[in-house]
């Protein structure tokens, strides 16, 4: 918190905001308020690197001039620290947090260019009376901001900002529209009108008296695809494996044991396989009476020699957890149930860190959208005819939306369509919501600059929209609710830069599948399925999964103040 115009921040508000995040960091916590009362920092800690008290936040640098609150992990912190030490920097802890302070002192805002990891942090510089704020390239770690013109409040959760009692709870109609169109609230909107998401891959300063200045974008997925040099010196599949293995190795940096979410899918199996070569591993698989991939996962875990936990979840447990599930859900989403229960299992086993295969489809083109969207844009009439033959409700809209990548994406990913919103939200909210949201322009922004290849375009949209707003956000809140940190070796800026030039050629999972046993490699791709329909008796809604009914239920629960 920074009362950047005048006055002082509220200490009780700071305590309340910090307290809301105790499940995220049960190990320690603290707050600090500047002597003049203008600046306040609060933190809850899940100790993973440097378990000693020296790792506690808010953390000061050795000179006592910079203080930081930081959520995330810096996987290359040891290398950065060595470089800083050669330059004369001194440290009082062994944590990655302190490396951020020293790096800021050396490089200022440019520091973010050298970070490999997931991060959201704020550094208060007592020398210049400026606060430096940054969020990681993909937005793995959430970061939200509320600016009332006098005080800026920043936190990892929308609900935390509201917990202080000073940020209005008014629901944003744009969030309502976005949620029913996409299944999650698209950034930069949040469910609360007065809170916005800080854009991933950007940083800025908050200046005393001036507010937000010097915004800087340090990462753009679209730009990486545009600038990728076309050369294939190495067999593409071999290179993808090599680089993914290296990313997995980086993501194993930890002072506590590491687990892996293991479904019987290719991404999570490959990650478990690569991780198991380097460290003793605990693997976790979710199983439902109605749907289970556990036998395959268990067989693979046996072959890898990991400690395997299969966690079975039944209807009763789901219903019992539902109130807390909604309470910890930071923003409305139609997903998150699987991460909730698998993280619960990880926590029960006493593990704090787990690797996830999330992002494999966005990286390696695993979704049908990688074929469908370019095809729809090239042959809109054909797509429309095909849709009409199958009596698809979206068929008549292809003429309207199917001519651009953004429009085709909205059709492909849409939960509801714009024309259906009035019946859910009422005429007025639907109209205002769509006007504020501008769904097509939100999608188009992810395509600037033009990634130039069909693959690059779809990859940029999927990673910046579905993955960021849904998969990563859900992975964060649903795991942190159980004090578990999810790490994502396939969502990594370094990995993307290394592979971008060959991804259009190697657009399938064969690179990761090559070393897996046949019973995992050769099975058809199945989405992970949670039996919500059976558990909740959701009413008929025209979809096989009853996701639309579930969405209404989520919205009702979350939109209450």
């Amino acid at each position: 918190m920074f009362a950047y115009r005048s006055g002082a921040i509220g200490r009780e508000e700071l305590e309340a905001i910090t307290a809301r995040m105790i499940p995220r960091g049960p190990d320690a916590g603290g707050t600090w308020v500047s002597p003049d009362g203008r600046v306040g920092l609060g933190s809850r800690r899940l100790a993973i690197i440097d378990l000693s008290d020296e790792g506690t936040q808010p953390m000061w640098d050795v000179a006592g001039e910079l203080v930081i609150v930081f959520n995330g992990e810096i996987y290359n912190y040891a290398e950065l620290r060595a470089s800083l030490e050669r330059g004369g920097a001194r440290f009082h802890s062994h944590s990655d947090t302190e490396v951020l302070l020293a790096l800021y002192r050396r490089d200022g805002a440019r520091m973010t260019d050298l970070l490999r990891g997931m991060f959201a942090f704020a550094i208060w510089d007592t020398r210049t009376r400026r606060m430096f704020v940054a969020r990681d390239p993909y937005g793995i770690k959430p970061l939200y901001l509320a600016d009332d013109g006098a005080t800026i409040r920043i936190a990892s959760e929308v609900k935390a900002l509201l917990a202080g009692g000073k940020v209005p709870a008014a629901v944003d109609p744009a969030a309502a529209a976005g949620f029913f169109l996409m299944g999650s609230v698209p950034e930069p909107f949040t469910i609360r009108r007065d809170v916005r998401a800080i854009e991933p891959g950007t940083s800025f300063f908050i200046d005393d008296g001036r507010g937000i200045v010097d915004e800087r974008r340090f990462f753009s997925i679209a730009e990486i695809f545009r600038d990728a040099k076309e050369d294939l010196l190495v067999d593409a599949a071999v290179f993808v494996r090599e680089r993914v293995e290296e990313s997995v190795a980086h993501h194993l940096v930890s002072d506590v044991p590491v687990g892996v979410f293991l479904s019987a899918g290719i991404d999570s199996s490959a990650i478990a396989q690569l991780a198991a070569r380097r460290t003793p591993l605990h693997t976790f698989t979710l199983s439902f009476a109605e749907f289970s991939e556990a036998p395959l996962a268990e067989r693979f875990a046996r072959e890898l020699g990991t400690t395997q936990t299969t966690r079975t979840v039944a209807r009763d447990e789901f219903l019992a957890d539902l109130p807390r599930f909604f309470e910890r859900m930071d923003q409305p989403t139609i997903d998150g149930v699987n991460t909730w229960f698998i993280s619960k299992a990880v926590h029960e086993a006493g593990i704090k860190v787990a690797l996830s295969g999330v992002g494999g489809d966005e990286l390696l083109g695993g979704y049908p959208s990688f074929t469908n969207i370019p095809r729809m844009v090239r042959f809109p009439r054909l797509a429309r005819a095909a849709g009409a033959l199958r009596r698809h409700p979206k068929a008549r809209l292809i003429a309207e939306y199917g001519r651009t990548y953004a429009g085709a994406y909205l059709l492909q990913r849409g939960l509801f369509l714009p024309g259906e919103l009035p019946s859910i939200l009422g005429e007025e909210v639907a109209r205002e919501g769509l006007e504020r949201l501008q769904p097509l322009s939100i999608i188009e922004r992810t395509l600037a600059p033009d990634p130039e290849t069909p693959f690059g375009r779809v990859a940029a949209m999927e990673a910046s929209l579905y993955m960021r707003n849904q998969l990563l956000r859900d992975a964060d809140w649903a795991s942190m609710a159980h004090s578990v940190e999810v790490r994502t070796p396939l969502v990594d800026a370094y990995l993307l830069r290394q592979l971008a030039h060959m991804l259009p050629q190697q657009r399938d999972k064969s690179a990761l599948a090559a070393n897996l046993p046949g019973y995992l490699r050769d099975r058809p791709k199945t989405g992970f399925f949670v039996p919500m329909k059976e558990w909740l008796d959701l009413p008929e809604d025209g979809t096989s999964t009853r996701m639309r009914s579930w969405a209404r239920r989520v919205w009702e629960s979350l939109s209450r103040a």
Partner: protein
Amino acid sequence: MPPEIPRFARDKLKKILFLVTDAYGGHGGIALFNREFCAALEGVEITVIPRVVRGLVQDPPPHVHFVAEAAEGPVAYLRAVAAARRAKPDLVICGHVNLLPLAFGRPLLVVHGIEAWKRRRLPLSRCSAVLSVSALTRDRFTGWSGFDGPTFVLPNAVHLDHYGIRPKREDFIARYRLEGKRVLLTVGRLEAAERSKGFDEMLEVLPDLPEDVVYMIAGGGNDAPRLQLRARELGVASRVVFTGLFADEEKQDLYNLADAYVMPSRGEGFGFVFLEAMACGVPAIGSKLDGGREALLDGKLGMLVDPTNRAEIRAAILETLERGERRIPEGLEYFSFENFADRANAVIQALTSNRVATSSV
């Protein structure tokens, strides 16, 4: 120092046939490796059949029979191979994947870099073993080929006593206008078909470095016009020096002009130039994405950067220039010729023990 490795039993293996692209009278890393490999196996009779002889033929040592006339053409080469076959060598070594179809018996295949990184049709089932200049090339090769026979890693060697720290030559400073400048150097061919040395990456970083830093590209090649244009586009043409092809005897003085040797490359099988630069006391910055990593002993001898991240390249350069230190790094003797010879002999030792079948079928 590694433990003493016993020289293999010379009585069990008397004659080696070595098929190479080039060796004596050749330029470049592969020719050099081939010459060093022969030198290391002193005491064995080695017949070397080259595809190419470009320059003046350096004198081969007495135990090497260099069939220079094989380089006259494909027919001459085949004739030389046929003659060598009749002499019934105890071991056939194939110095390049391109020559594998011509090798007979159960050859030992040598792999270096990009020639072995991509899928291609090769009669690999005949190979008794694979020798690689780096673990990276070995892994990239076995990754696509599935070769599951024995493999050995034998990194390049540097004759430390041939190099050393010298003052910057005044006439060179004048020739390249380096007065008062800090010099970054990359040595390598400017190959339009490859573009993997990291020249582009360096040019792109240059605008972001202090004005007194100049970048020297030492080497000839057909990509020079494009790189010169790129330097102009980026507004750094006045800070880039293209030496063009240089004479071998000028090489050491070129290295000694540099304050840092930087090569953010993606195509080096090993990166012998790093060893030369370090042997001249020039601090080295290499790539995490190719064999440079191994030439710098995983970062122990010099800094490593990800060539796809300009900020990492820039930070490593600034740190190195800031330190401004010229010294031959501790641990470089890992790549001394003596250690190379021990490793080469250990490879042959392993091949001649009964574990690996190398004799002709």
